[in-house]
């Protein structure tokens, strides 16, 4: 699995849709109009089909017709059918699958995929050159992107990605079983919580909160700050304070009272709260985590069509329609206003539309640290005994 590309592979990629590399393509991009009629170059034509891979149950659904209204509306507006596949259910596993073809220079037959930036994979994809740059000239609505999400450390100019949904990582607790747990030190050192808490198994989920509690900046990790945070977690593992490291399977035990408190994602707690009024969620005062599921264009995907779709999603009305169903955090400014009229209960829920203060207090994890072999090997050894 060496990285070198043969000329044959380069050619294969170019014909598969990276045509913007051609001179006319570049000129057209500079020209900046998206008038389909005027353009004669291949890259400004909408494909008949947009192949979109996403996570399960992550887009609006009409339960009666079992269709996705926003996708149908997109077809009506542009004539492009969206071939929507829900075949992503875990970043690592999905990457494990697509790295096969991508490392051989083959296309994975997708125009848009969605991966989370609390994992190393979006930055790894960019580093390996396995994603295409967005055609920003086709995405004027990019101005609607939530300001705090505009410059993530792994894609500072949003050249390759656009958020689909976000989530916050904080501490959830069950008020029937424990006093409010609002800080990381309380969670990890309170003897009453011994064996009744879990942390998240993603290093990019857990470490931002630990580092923030230590007073360090999670977006700029150094050996020193890493070691400090690692020591804190290791102590809690060895003492038996931490029961398990979970993916989102903390939701069952939290709902049933096996856990008094845990690191949890805002979107999950929105749903769990509805059935169990004793569950609460907060960003730790020192700082919480924010993660984003990002739309990316894999190599070989049709850049223009994908970009046009992204522009469509960034219309507040469309984003609001999806948000009304998905209930994670919407990255599109203006969607809240739309929902205030149509579904106020969702618009007013700060777990779905967090305040500016909340967003300012939530941090990404340093992508360089996510890819640092020393760190991640140590982390995996810690969570796997």
């Amino acid at each position, binding site marked *: 699995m060496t*990285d070198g590309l043969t000329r044959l592979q380069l050619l294969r990629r170019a014909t598969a849709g990276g045509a913007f590399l051609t001179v006319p393509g570049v000129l057209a991009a500079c020209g900046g109009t998206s008038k389909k009629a005027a353009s004669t170059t291949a890259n400004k034509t909408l494909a008949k089909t947009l192949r979109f891979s996403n996570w399960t149950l992550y887009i609006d659904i009409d339960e009666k017709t079992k269709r996705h209204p926003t996708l149908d509306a997109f077809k009506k507006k542009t004539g492009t059918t969206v071939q929507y596949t829900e075949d992503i259910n875990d970043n690592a596993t999905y990457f494990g699958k697509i790295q096969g073809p991508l490392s051989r220079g083959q296309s994975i037959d997708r125009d848009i995929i969605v991966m989370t930036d609390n994992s190393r994979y979006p930055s790894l994809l960019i580093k390996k050159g396995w994603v295409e740059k967005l055609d920003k000239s086709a995405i004027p609505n990019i101005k609607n992107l939530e300001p705090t999400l505009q410059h993530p450390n792994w894609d500072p100019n949003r050249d390759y990605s656009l958020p689909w949904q976000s989530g916050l990582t904080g501490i959830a607790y069950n008020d029937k079983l424990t006093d409010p747990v609002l800080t990381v030190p309380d969670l990890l050192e309170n003897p009453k919580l011994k064996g009744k808490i879990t942390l998240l198994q993603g290093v990019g989920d857990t470490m931002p909160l630990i580092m923030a509690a230590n007073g360090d900046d999670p977006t700029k990790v150094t050996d020193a700050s890493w070691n400090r945070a690692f020591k804190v977690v290791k102590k809690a593992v060895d003492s038996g304070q931490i029961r398990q490291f979970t993916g989102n399977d903390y939701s069952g035990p939290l709902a*049933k009272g*096996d856990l008094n408190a845990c690191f949890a994602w805002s979107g999950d707690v929105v749903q769990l709260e509805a059935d169990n009024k004793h569950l609460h969620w907060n960003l730790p005062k020192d700082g919480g985590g924010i993660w984003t599921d990002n739309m990316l264009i894999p190599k070989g995907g049709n850049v223009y069509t994908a970009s046009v779709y992204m522009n469509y999603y960034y219309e507040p009305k469309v984003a609001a329609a999806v948000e009304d169903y998905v209930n994670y955090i919407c990255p599109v400014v203006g969607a809240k206003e739309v929902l205030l009229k149509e579904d106020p209960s969702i618009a007013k829920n700060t777990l779905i539309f967090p305040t500016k203060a909340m967003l300012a207090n939530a941090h990404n994890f340093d992508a360089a640290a996510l890819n640092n072999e020393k760190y*991640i090997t140590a982390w995996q050894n*810690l969570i796997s005994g």
Partner: protein
Amino acid sequence: MGFLHRHRNLTPYSLLAPGLLYLGLFFVVPLGFLAYQSLESGNFDVGYAFTWAWGNYWDAIRNYRGHFIRSLEYAGIATVLALLFGYPLAYWIAFRGGRWKNLLLLFIVAPFFVTYLIRTLAWESILADHGPVVSVLRDVGILGNDGRLLATSTAVVAGITYNFFPFMALPLYVSLEQIDQRLIEAAQDLYASKWKAFLRITLPLSLPGVVAGTLLTFIPAAGDFINAQLLGSPKNHMIGNVIQSKFLELTDYPAAASMSFVLMATILVMVALYARAVGTEKLTG
């Protein structure tokens, strides 16, 4: 061997050919690729190169010896438990099942119809800290006041036992069902007690099933990762979890490949010893 096919030397090969060719193409070839990977060195950034990196194997054993041993332990205990629980059940279905045998077999594999995740979540409900089982165990004194079942090695072994139960029960049934009941009656006519008849007649005749069941349970269980992930704490993780993380999170394919081979070799050595101990081809074919 029977006189039936004494003249046809090619018959065994023609019987074997379809299956073995299939396995040859779709298992051995991928395995070869895996072996090649296990001897590579490098990392994901700069790529991998084949360097006869036997050090990968040595590293795997050295760094994760505890996990290997733990996996064999858990799989072994689970296999024994599955045998103890499964034998009487298979016996009952074989001898008392009558015409309902097939339906009863269906009930044994029923849990597989609801996917792994759902049935594990259901067990998490049953074994919850505030649930009925743990409460009873606490009252009875088996568990301390703060004791729990989930996120312990007990839960992991229990999960493995449950999930591999059909792999033990079905081969046991297959072997028990063909025992001619008249042999047992004859033994009893000769004044053997029911228990003695069982020990002297039924048990020995069912040994092929016991061997088959233990192998079909132990071997895959040793490489399992999911029970440990959902039901265990970090101290309970098995080698399957490590291989999983090497491959997915750390994209360290040579390490994952070499660890897999160490696991496979260990298991196969144990199987060979087991077959030797249990004795002849009569039982293992």
